[in-house]
């Protein structure tokens, strides 16, 4: 059975016709040519297909495209156009923020290279080797930082009753990122990249505190 659906992908509205059996991951890659989410295990065990749907990290391989009609999807390709890179709201402005034609090394600031701060941190800390898991890693990290800012606890959080943004030490980061495997074993540098971004957000948290539920 075919179904026509509409997705807003990295700020752009797309309306593919998909078989009901098509996953969100396959719709993005095979129908829409959005190749940044990767197919690793295709069974929800590796995290390579992680994208943000409505600002929350999910696995594209276990999501049916037809069940996401109307969804706002942000892949690693569109992360750089997020407003602050943290809350996952909207990919608005993506089209006006083209990275095409930018020469390597022409980075004039965190917002000028088209990269999300988390992506830049992965580069700065060498948080990858082959790069296959990286689009999923960065989407997961962006979603995870938003969850932490919203005060979500984790399996290793000592005090469940503590409110406010979660404090992300290394143990917390490792636990919260455990759904993304890296078979090259770049975990140490992925951890460093996410740790840096967690620290940046913790410093900024007081100013943004009012908006956090």
């Amino acid at each position, binding site marked *: *059975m075919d*179904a026509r659906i509409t997705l807003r992908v990295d700020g752009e509205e797309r309306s593919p016709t998909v*078989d*009901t*059996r098509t*996953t969100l991951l396959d719709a993005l890659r095979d129908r829409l040519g959005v190749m940044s989410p990767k197919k690793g295990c*295709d*069974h*929800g065990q590796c*995290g390579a297909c*992680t994208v943000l749907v409505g600002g*929350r*990290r*999910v*696995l594209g*391989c*276990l*999501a*049916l495209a*037809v*069940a996401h009609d109307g969804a706002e999807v942000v892949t690693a390709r569109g992360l750089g156009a997020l407003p602050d890179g943290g809350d996952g709201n909207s990919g608005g402005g993506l089209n006006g923020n083209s990275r095409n034609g930018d020469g390597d090394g022409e980075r004039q600031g965190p917002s000028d290279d088209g990269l999300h701060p988390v992506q830049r941190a992965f580069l700065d800390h060498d948080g990858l080797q082959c790069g296959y898991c990286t689009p999923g890693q960065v989407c*997961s990290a962006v*979603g*995870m930082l938003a*969850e932490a800012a*919203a*005060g*979500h*606890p*984790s*399996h*290793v*959080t*000592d005090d*469940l*009753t503590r*409110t406010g943004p979660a404090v992300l030490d290394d*143990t917390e980061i*490792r*636990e*919260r*990122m*455990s*759904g*993304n495997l890296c078979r090259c074993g770049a975990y140490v540098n992925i951890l460093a990249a996410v740790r840096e971004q967690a620290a940046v957000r913790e410093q900024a948290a007081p100013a943004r505190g009012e908006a956090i539920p």
Partner: protein
Amino acid sequence: MIPFDYVRPADPADAVAAVGGRPGAAFLAGGTNLVDHLKLGVTGPDLLVDVSGLPLDRIEETPTGALRIGATVRNSDLAAHPLVRHRYPALSRALLAGASGQLRNMATTGGNLFQRTRCPYFQDTSTPCNKRVPGSGCSALGGHTRDAAILGASAHCVATHPSDMAVALLALDASVVLLGPDGERTLPLAALHRLPGDTPHRDTVVEHGELVTAVELPDRASARHSTYRKVRDRRSYAFALVSVAAALDVADGTVRDVRIALGGVAHKPWRAERAEAALRGTAPTEAGFARAADAELAAARPLEGNAFKVPLARRTLVAVLRDLAGAADGGTRHDGREGGR
């Protein structure tokens, strides 16, 4: 994957009618288990009725002080909810011990209850499995049994229930609200899941077309002193070998109320009523905890590959009770979180 139709029902009654009226229809919520099974060929519904958009996503207190959790509340939202974190810490802990951040953002309360065993033979369509194909045999017997049940299994099936959440809900005396063609019924969670017997293809007592709309938790003193401890083969993102959810209410040096459930040991979340009976009215001591664990595990019938689960369950149960008793005494705060690290 077998072709299927897809509909979004207008309301819960519409959803029930859509599935109830077609033998090959199934509900779809978060999809984290079902979509995988569609790919693997474990199941092949001809119609998916997507309930994820139904207005069942609220968490609210009822007039009696109970907590009513809508069936489509996502696992991550439930774990993070302030009332759950304060009143039912075992539930938050269990949810956070399960799956990954991405999966918890997708998986729903209702769907979690109906996820199916991760027995490797159930998921491998090239092998016999009585749960997947009734009467075809059990490949786990004589095969890989590290994950298999030690309590309540049968000659037809030794699979374990994979949910963490359901184990905590059982120890918290949850009820499940089901909507069917003939209206609503409420079932104690303890009566939802089945032992395998000679019909292991049926995980629960729920009839085709019945939809879980909510889970209800009573407001009990012991629930506030509850926790969940999970032991697994790696530190994170793995199913339980053994897990323990317990709620303990100690007053005047005596166990006034205790509720215990075990995970990873049976075809269903296992309520440890023998252990509870051995503890109620006694002083909370290490020796008493060990006796209670032994009382429960006397019925264990391990296989060659999972005999380790008996002493592991015993030690984990004793440790959880020790931590809860210590916390009740105002001693060093220990809530069992370390079990999965």
